[in-house]
């Protein structure tokens, strides 16, 4: 079958980018892709195969499931086991292991756990089951927070009282600061998350370039987007600049999405949050404001705080901080596989361990 013209053009463009990357990367250059969707796109398109050895791509903390702390996991498992509760969640959370079990095991024991694809579905379930309490597990970054905020406003407006959200939402800028301050981190530049920045804009991450001298490019998710962003970062080095630039112009604007920002501010407030393997990061989480307290699962069920230890041997934290490649973890591919995951980085489809397992190599390599 002849190749369509767009594909031919894209191939030619990719060739040009790769040529320029080779030309500009005479010295080593390490780039962290912050977002899990980038990790998957890089792996799926086998981009590492095409880059010169001087350009290193390492994965960062940008998979919301992966950074969910063991204590938070045990807390929602405790909630899901309550009678009369219907737990609604995005599919990725179903197999994430807590200290003792996961949602899938609870479901087999009789807990009512349902996978939904949007908060709208969760509201719908609440509407159809007036005698039950529906809890939505709010896991995600700035990208999912707006729709969850909207669902809380709908619940408030329509008086849907059998619906609540357990907010484990996190925001990206504080964890970027933590990474930038980490003396062990060997990263020259960042591929910044396209969809997060489409919401928050570039201002909240400008400090990376200005204070820490770490340039960043807000990047889209196609192979060509990523290659172009790498070219843009290398050009910055060549020109001695350190800026936050936008490659993903068709979606992300410098000012972000003011409407989404306003909705999130109305419903959520910044709180300290625990990140798996990274500890408590001040102001890095989104808690539900008191005005919406009736729909906040923590208040509604007076949920206890759990102090769960992290799984021994699991190096998800080191992976998330970009200190090791997933394959350098002793458990990778042997004791920890997508079928029997030890840490969440192996469960989530956007987790770096799962992406490496799927697309690169196995324990027997």
């Amino acid at each position, binding site marked *: 079958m002849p190749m369509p013209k767009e594909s031919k053009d894209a191939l030619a463009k990719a060739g040009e980018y790769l040529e320029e990357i080779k030309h500009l990367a005479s010295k080593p250059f390490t780039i962290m892709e912050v977002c899990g969707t980038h990790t998957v796109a890089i792996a799926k398109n086998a981009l590492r*195969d095409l880059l010169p050895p001087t350009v290193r791509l390492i994965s960062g903390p940008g998979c919301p499931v992966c950074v969910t702390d063991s204590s938070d996991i045990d807390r929602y498992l405790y909630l899901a086991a309550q009678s009369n509760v219907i737990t609604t969640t995005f599919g990725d959370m179903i197999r994430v292991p807590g200290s003792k079990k996961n949602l899938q095991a609870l479901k087999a024991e009789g807990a009512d756990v*349902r996978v939904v694809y949007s908060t709208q579905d969760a509201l719908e379930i609440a509407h159809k089951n007036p005698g039950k309490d529906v809890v939505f597990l709010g896991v995600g970054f700035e990208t999912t927070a707006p729709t969850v905020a909207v669902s809380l406003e709908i619940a408030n407006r329509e008086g849907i009282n059998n619906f609540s959200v357990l907010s484990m939402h996190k925001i990206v800028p504080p964890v970027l600061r933590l990474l930038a301050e980490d003396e062990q981190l060997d990263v020259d530049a960042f591929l910044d998350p396209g969809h997060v920045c489409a919401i928050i804009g570039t201002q909240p991450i400008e400090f990376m370039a200005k204070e820490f001298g770490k340039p960043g490019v807000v990047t889209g998710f196609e192979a060509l987007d990523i290659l172009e962003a790498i070219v843009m970062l290398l050009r910055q080095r060549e020109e001695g600049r350190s800026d936050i630039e936008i490659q993903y112009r068709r979606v992300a604007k410098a000012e972000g999405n003011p409407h989404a920002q306003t909705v999130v501010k109305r419903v959520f407030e910044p709180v300290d949050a625990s990140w798996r393997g990274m500890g408590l990061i001040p102001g890095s989480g989104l808690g539900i404001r008191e005005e919406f307290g009736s729909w906040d699962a923590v208040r509604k069920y007076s949920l206890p705080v759990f102090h769960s230890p992290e799984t021994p041997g699991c190096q998800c934290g080191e992976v998330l901080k970009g200190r090791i490649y997933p394959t350098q973890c002793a458990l990778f591919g042997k004791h920890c596989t997508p079928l029997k995951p030890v840490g969440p980085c192996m469960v989530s489809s956007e987790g770096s361990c799962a992406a490496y397992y799927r697309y690169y190599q*196995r324990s027997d390599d």
Partner: protein
Amino acid sequence: MERIMMAHGSGGRLSHELIRGLFQKYLGNSFLDQMNDATIVPGQEQLAVTTDSFVVSPLFFRGGNIGRLAVCGTVNDLAVSGASPKFLSLALILEEGLPLEELERIIQSVADTAKEAGISIVCGDTKVVERGSADKLFINTTGIGYSNRYFVNPQQIHPGDVILITGTIGDHEIAILSDREGLEFETPVTSDCAPLNGLIDSFFQGGVKCMRDPTRGGVATTLNELAQQAGVSMLLKEESLPILPGVKGACDMLGLDPLYLANEGKALVIVKPEAAETVLRAMHAHPLGHRAAQIGVVQEGKPGFVLLETPLGGKRIVGMLEGEHLPRIC
């Protein structure tokens, strides 16, 4: 509305009415009409036998229903083994309360699909369970085929062989997904559910070494199984994979990979390189094969590994499906 009651499975008058008024009405033939505890069918020296159970939810989906699926699934398992499907059993487990009208539409579809595939339903069974003990309707079919051709199997696969697929991938699972409760989305994609024996008869020839239907686990999992059994490596070309725009769109939206989606009317066919062109041309000439394509080659290299070359020239591993994609898709 008339519904299935426990008495329909009692063996008494209502059971009898169901058999006469529904099963014999649509499925009757000289074999089924023997009405004995076992049916006598003509045989030959080499027979192929297979069985499959069907629990798909919802019962009716874009492009098919559980009845059509129950015939196609078993017919296709026989056909890709190189056998000519001849006879099928049909065993039903009905949940109390199932609307009779739905059952009738399904049995009608079983009859139509059996006719399309050129096979006879030769025996059957019906059980009814209390409400809640099953979900509407489960079906088991066992198929018998005549094995006249030489045996196709993975041991014959060698480096240099060519990997063909008879059409677009992932259609069935996307069609089911789009009809699932809580996930309804508009898509023009319909299930590819179809009996493949006619298509296979049209292209089968000397150079065909192995055939499989990539159902659950999709093309990726089936090729991994073949690569392991044959002790070879395989290389797929991403841009040559036939994928409908609707399937690609849904995959992008839901974060799925078409290579892992179930198909119910496609065959992967491994052929000698010399035969590839003629086989592909024969596929294209058949209504079920007009989107057939060469998607890769068998190569030397690490045994059991399936690789994929992206349009930009990078290569990555295509592993087996890990865990569960989606329950009850067939």
